[in-house]
């Protein structure tokens, strides 16, 4: 059932992407050649790019190609879109995956502290910090980090990217150096969102009878919270991480621009400014695919965390 919904969502998403890009007014061939172009060469280009075919036929050939990994060819360079995309997927994936793993590591302790000490100043500070973190755009977080750590302290590079392996040699130090600030700007924002959910999940646990019982038999607050709280909080944390993935991807696109990182986002934006629509279409589809896959995995992971949900529908 979940797989069926997943497949249907993919189809709906691909139709939506295709329609927005292709059915709105504005002709690709004219866009490429410029408005003063000779009508006959525009017509020739349309023919060469296959734009003269009906929308449905074009959609089916695009979608059909995707089933075996063919995203079409760039309107500008003729290069296959998949060749353009695949080396960049890794770059963006590093950013997203590392941030996704680090954010809960920051949010869990801060959220627990905010819940345990919610009536004291420590809790107030933790809550306030996450409230402020929530209000900062990723761009700004990135720029502030650059101002402090690159411009002010000269500890880290202000921008750029090095692959982990360049021409057969490992470059772990440079790789990490270039990733610290971009990842940090993503984590600040993600962890702030997450902290709020962790906090309210733990506050709920603190009010439960089983927590009082654990305290009554002599467990310390922290031990009781750790034993009973974590699993109960895990559900909402996993949900939020799943839902936040699309914001994280978007954040990565922005962060790639702030730090001039040659990832998917950079490719996407340059395709937009060149109006290379087939590339735009392809990359957006890849990103949406990633989001939908993660949503599916999130759904499935509930079953691991909460045995009560096995066999039943979560709604």
């Amino acid at each position, binding site marked *: 059932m979940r797989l069926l919904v997943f497949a249907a*969502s993919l189809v709906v998403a691909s139709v939506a992407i295709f329609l927005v890009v292709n059915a709105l007014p504005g002709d690709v061939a004219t866009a490429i050649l410029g408005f003063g172009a000779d009508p006959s060469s525009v017509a020739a280009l349309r023919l060469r790019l296959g734009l003269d075919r009906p929308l449905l036929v074009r959609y089916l050939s695009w979608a059909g190609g995707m089933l075996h990994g063919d995203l079409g060819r760039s309107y500008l360079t003729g290069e296959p879109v998949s060749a353009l995309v695949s080396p960049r997927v890794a770059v963006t994936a590093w950013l997203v995956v590392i941030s996704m793993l680090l954010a809960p590591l920051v949010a869990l302790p801060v959220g627990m502290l905010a819940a345990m000490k919610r009536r004291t100043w420590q809790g107030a500070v933790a809550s306030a910090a996450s409230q402020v973190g929530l209000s900062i*755009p990723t761009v*700004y977080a990135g*720029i502030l980090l650059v101002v402090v750590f690159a411009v002010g302290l000269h500890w880290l590079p202000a921008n750029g990217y090095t692959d982990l392996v360049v021409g057969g040699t490992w470059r772990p130090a440079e790789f990490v150096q270039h990733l610290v600030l971009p990842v940090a700007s993503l984590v600040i924002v993600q962890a702030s969102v997450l902290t709020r959910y962790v906090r*309210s999940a733990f506050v709920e646990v603190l009010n439960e009878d089983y927590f009082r019982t654990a305290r009554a038999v002599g467990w310390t607050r922290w031990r009781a919270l750790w034993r009973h709280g974590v699993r109960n909080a895990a559900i909402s944390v996993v949900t939020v991480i799943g*839902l936040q993935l699309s914001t994280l991807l*978007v954040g990565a696109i922005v962060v790639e621009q702030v730090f001039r990182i040659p990832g998917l986002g950079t490719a996407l934006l340059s395709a937009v400014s060149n109006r290379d*629509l087939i590339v735009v279409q392809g990359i957006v589809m890849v990103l*949406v695919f990633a989001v939908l896959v993660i949503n599916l995995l999130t759904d499935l992971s509930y079953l691991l965390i909460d045995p009560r949900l096995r066999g039943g529908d979560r709604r």
Partner: protein
Amino acid sequence: MRRAGLWVGVVLVALVILAALVSLVWTPYNPLQVQPTQTLRPAGWPHLLGTDGFGIDILSRLLVGARTTVYVGLVAVSLAAVGGVPLGILAGMLGGWVSQVVLRVTDVLYAFPALLLAILLAAAVGASTTTAMVAIGIASIPAFARVARAATLIVMTQDYILAARACGTSRWTISVRHVLPNIAAVLGVQASVSFGIAILAEAALSYLGLATPPPTPTWGRMLHDAQTYIFSSPVQALWPGLAIAWSVLGLNLLGDGLRDHLDPRLREAT
């Protein structure tokens, strides 16, 4: 303590709206006037926050930027409410397969953040204020639909709905006369939160050049421009970011405060 949050939120948001209104009639300098002899002045007098790389007064640009932000946010949130609320009420009142379809559609929409929609629109018809507003608006529909549905489900269990039904009131009348007024407060909270998200999205879009085109000042593009001079004049980048964070913080505090005010039982948990 919590009340304090609400009032801080009200004050922060009111100041942003005030800045937007003031910019309609007065700014310290012309926010479009390039002055090659006045570039990158530090904060002080006569330019309170200094000037940018074109010699334009930063405070003036910030004030006009508030206008763009408020405008884009208002239109985007209205679009989202108009699109999402009827869907949510429909799903909540009818239930069954209607509800399932609405939920699935919102699931798919969740996979399209505002930025991706804006990129698609910008690729298809060129970036503008309108494409940014439409993209942010559409991306915010699922949040409104879900909140409206959840709130409608609660309202539908109330006795006054049963009474209205017993009197033979039509579904349409029930939805407009009974459901909508009773979920309005919850929607207000959502509007406040969505407005904050819209401001963040607008900032990202205009930073990337996917929203309001130059020369109209926007906070996002001010950040972008400031980044060019980050080594020579790093302070410049502080102001537009502060303005964005200020507005979003205000709206979030306002939203949280309103929610607690509506439902004191939630105060502890959230």
